[in-house]
């Protein structure tokens, strides 16, 4: 279905899951949800008692195979919406939501070629929807995720990703840490640059579809490094989250 009409729907919070000290997943039942493609986002609208409305975009974390819609939200201290979504929100709360939105930054298992995902922090959320969808597919594309985090305890979906990779030789998951070097850490350290992409990402000759998501400076430096390594700009899709982590 490429025909799209955007209407606001009242979603019900079924469950709230603490992912990390700063990130929570919110499981929503959305009446008449039309289904989505991995990578798409929704708009959430919150209205306070005085009628003041705030609207934000959040990526969908769940695969289309799941009936509920799951959002993962990272707390932004000076944000208007994320402190509620990462703090006060409770099971049974109702939220206004519209979507799915944005067919450009999407991937489905039907697309040919290897899948290269590069995430900066909570930019992992729409990429996780792609990996969860891929895990449902009988024919699994070769896939690699390279993600950058400040600290080990900020890694979202750490255990689920370990399990996905343990059961799937076609999937490689690499996390790098930029702000600490904890005891027992066997992964790489430092920012994702051309050297790290050369070491852990598919080469241009393997013709991967590349999806990069994260804060604007992260996405732009990774996209520049990929082009420098020889990847075609048209093979790289980017989703910038802006400087503060949440989308627009």
């Amino acid at each position, binding site marked *: 279905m*490429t025909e*799209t*009409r955007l209407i606001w729907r009242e979603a019900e919070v079924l469950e709230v899951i603490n992912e990390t000290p700063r990130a929570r997943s919110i499981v929503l039942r959305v009446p008449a949800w*039309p289904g989505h493609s*991995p990578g798409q986002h929704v708009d959430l609208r919150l209205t306070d008692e005085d009628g003041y409305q705030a609207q934000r975009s959040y990526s969908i974390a769940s695969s289309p195979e799941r009936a509920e819609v799951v959002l993962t939200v990272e707390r932004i201290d000076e944000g208007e919406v994320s402190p509620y979504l990462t703090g006060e929100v409770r099971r049974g709360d109702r939220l206004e939501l519209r979507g799915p939105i*944005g*067919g450009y930054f999407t991937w489905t298992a039907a697309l040919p070629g290897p899948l290269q995902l590069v995430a900066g922090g909570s930019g992992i959320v729409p990429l996780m929807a792609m990996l969860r969808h891929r895990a449902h597919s009988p024919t699994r594309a070769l896939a690699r995720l390279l993600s950058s985090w400040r600290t080990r305890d900020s890694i979202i979906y750490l255990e689920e990703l370990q399990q996905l990779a343990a059961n799937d030789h076609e999937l490689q998951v690499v996390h790098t840490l930029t702000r600490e070097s904890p005891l027992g850490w066997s992964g790489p350290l430092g920012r994702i640059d051309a050297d790290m992409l050369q070491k852990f990402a598919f080469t241009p000759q393997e013709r991967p579809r590349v999806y990069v998501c994260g804060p604007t400076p992260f996405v732009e430096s990774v996209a520049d490094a990929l082009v420098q390594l020889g990847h075609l700009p048209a093979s790289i899709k980017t989703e910038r989250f*802006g400087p503060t982590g949440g989308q627009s």
Partner: protein
Amino acid sequence: MTIQTFDELRLDGNAAAGLLQQLFAFEITTAITICDGCERESPVGALLFYGQPLGAVLRCPACDQVMVVVTRPHDEWWLDLRGVRLLHVSASSESAAT
């Protein structure tokens, strides 16, 4: 409050989907634009998006020309397509949209 520079506020055209999709019957972020300045072909989702208090500006990723200005005061839309020479919308686009 963090002070943000113009560059840090740049997002992808995909972020305009919520703003624009209400005006179009088909997926708009995979529609192809041709820039009136440099003739570069880009999906709407790959344009550069700058949010504004009442809308957004979309620029060409190659030459930075202003292509689209959307202003949305209340329940109106003002759509200025000054930098779009051609907009190609496909009912069965490559979009992986379900």
